[in-house]
């Protein structure tokens, strides 16, 4: 151990990081019956790291291009040792990450952790959620199978519905008028370079904000603890909470490994731009509530195209969602505010529409 201490001392003399990590030693996590929800952000981060690692592994064999992509993924899954497992983990981890990110967001809403001064933590988090969905959308196309081909066609076409900027954006995304190999090349670039870069910066900002501002206590509990300080419970972040988080990661890894091994991800059929869309085609589950909503809007509402209306409504809703904390004052009388109601509505709507979309013909 003395060798380690010497090395630590030697590095400390050169980096002088003691001051930097000092706050981490003081940091505490409030302990109460809802503390378990604090793990979700960390689990999402853990799954993101898994994505980066398995993504790098997939890059060793994956080849972007309309004539090679499907075959290279097929090669990974059938020829490369444990290739099926790596790809399966990448796909499952992606889906779990989106799920935990959504769960994290709703837990933050219900525990009211977005309140002042944590508005920017919320903003960066919601943008990260959108980025994660962008990862999902771009990554979905990469195996170049039929489902992905038509999902991308529909998804980019929806972008094209936005007035004025829609068409140029669609052409930018597709790399042309149609979904072709050029689209695949672009999506590959977004998926492995643009999005990871943006996400890494935003994750750093997000985590830094959590470090600076400390962990939020639900307002109800805060009041109780203010009235009766002896009831206050907390634990040290390091090592007490960090070790618990590590256990959560270990469980997440177990779930991930089991899912990936027991239900390996399908590859499907190679995309053919000259084949009709297969029956029962649907987007990934996290886009299903939007898909189903668009499906239910009539072709014309008054004089506006139904699609345009739906896209604008979702765009506006997304923007307002990012700015959500700024609509709530920090006035105590508004504690039981409408935001909780809105969160319940959003959760119910998204779950209901997703289930409807899943079971609808």
């Amino acid at each position, binding site marked *: 151990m003395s060798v380690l201490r010497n090395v630590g001392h030697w590095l400390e003399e050169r980096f002088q990081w003691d001051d930097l990590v000092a706050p981490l030693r003081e940091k505490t996590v409030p302990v109460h019956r809802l503390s378990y929800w604090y793990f979700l952000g960390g689990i999402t981060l853990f799954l993101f790291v898994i994505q980066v690692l398995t993504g790098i592994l997939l890059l060793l064999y994956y080849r972007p291009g309309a004539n090679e992509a499907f075959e290279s993924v097929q090669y990974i899954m059938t020829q490369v040792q444990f290739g099926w497992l790596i790809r399966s983990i990448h796909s499952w981890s992606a889906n779990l990450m989106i799920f935990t990110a959504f769960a994290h967001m709703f837990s933050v809403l219900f525990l009211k952790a977005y309140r002042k001064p944590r508005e920017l933590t919320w903003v960066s988090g919601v943008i990260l959620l959108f980025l994660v969905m962008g990862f999902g959308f771009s990554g979905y196309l990469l195996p170049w199978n039929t489902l992905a081909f038509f999902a991308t066609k*529909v998804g980019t076409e929806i972008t094209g519905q936005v007035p004025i900027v829609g068409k140029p954006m669609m052409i*930018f995304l597709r790399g042309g008028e149609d979904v072709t190999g050029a689209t695949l090349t672009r999506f590959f670039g977004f998926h492995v370079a643009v999005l990871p870069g943006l996400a890494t910066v935003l994750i750093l900002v997000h985590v830094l904000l959590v470090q600076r501002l400390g962990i939020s206590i639900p307002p109800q509990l805060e009041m109780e603890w203010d009235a009766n300080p002896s009831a206050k419970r907390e634990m040290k972040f390091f090592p007490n909470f960090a070790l618990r988080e590590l256990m959560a990661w270990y469980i997440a890894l177990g779930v991930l490994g089991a899912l990936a091994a027991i239900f390996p991800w399908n590859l499907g059929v190679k995309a053919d731009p000259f084949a009709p*869309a297969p029956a029962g085609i649907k987007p990934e589950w996290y886009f299903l509530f939007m898909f189903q909503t668009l499906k239910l809007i009539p072709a014309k509402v008054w004089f506006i195209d139904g699609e345009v209306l739906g896209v604008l409504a979702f765009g506006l809703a997304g923007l307002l969602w990012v700015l959500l904390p700024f609509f709530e004052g920090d006035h105590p009388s508004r504690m039981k505010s409408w935001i909780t109601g809105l969160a319940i509505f959003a959760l119910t709507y998204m779950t209901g529409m997703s289930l409807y979309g899943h079971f609808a013909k």
Partner: protein
Amino acid sequence: MASGESLGNPNQQQPPSVLRRRFVEVLLGSGFVATAAAFVYPVLRYLVPPTTSDLGSDAVVAGRVGELKPNSGKIFRFGNRPGLLIREASGEYRAMSATCTHLSCTVQFREDLREVWCACHNGKYNLDGRNISGPPPRPLEAFDVQVRGEEIFVRRRRET
């Protein structure tokens, strides 16, 4: 030395050196802006994909006589877009664009419905290509069909 004095005495009005400073600021500023523009403009143009000369000719061979049994359909290539060739139960041929006018999925002929159907959002068209149910906002572009010998030619309709 004038500039040195002006820095030392900010309260004193010294128009020539202030002017000179302003001139240098504007020169530098516009230089930066010009440099930035010189970088940004090519990048923006680079992001826009080149337009491909699409469609080629206005007519293609969509299939051969005898290839399609009555009441069936097939997808053919029309330039780099898909087209749909249908043989009705009566034996008559029809052709139209196979790109759904809703969100541009590729449609198919449903033998059971005797209609054109899009699997993505359950849009339906009749055999003239007219949108009859579901979300499609416009009819499919109909093409002219000519049978010449063994080959079935599909031709884009002239704009009138």
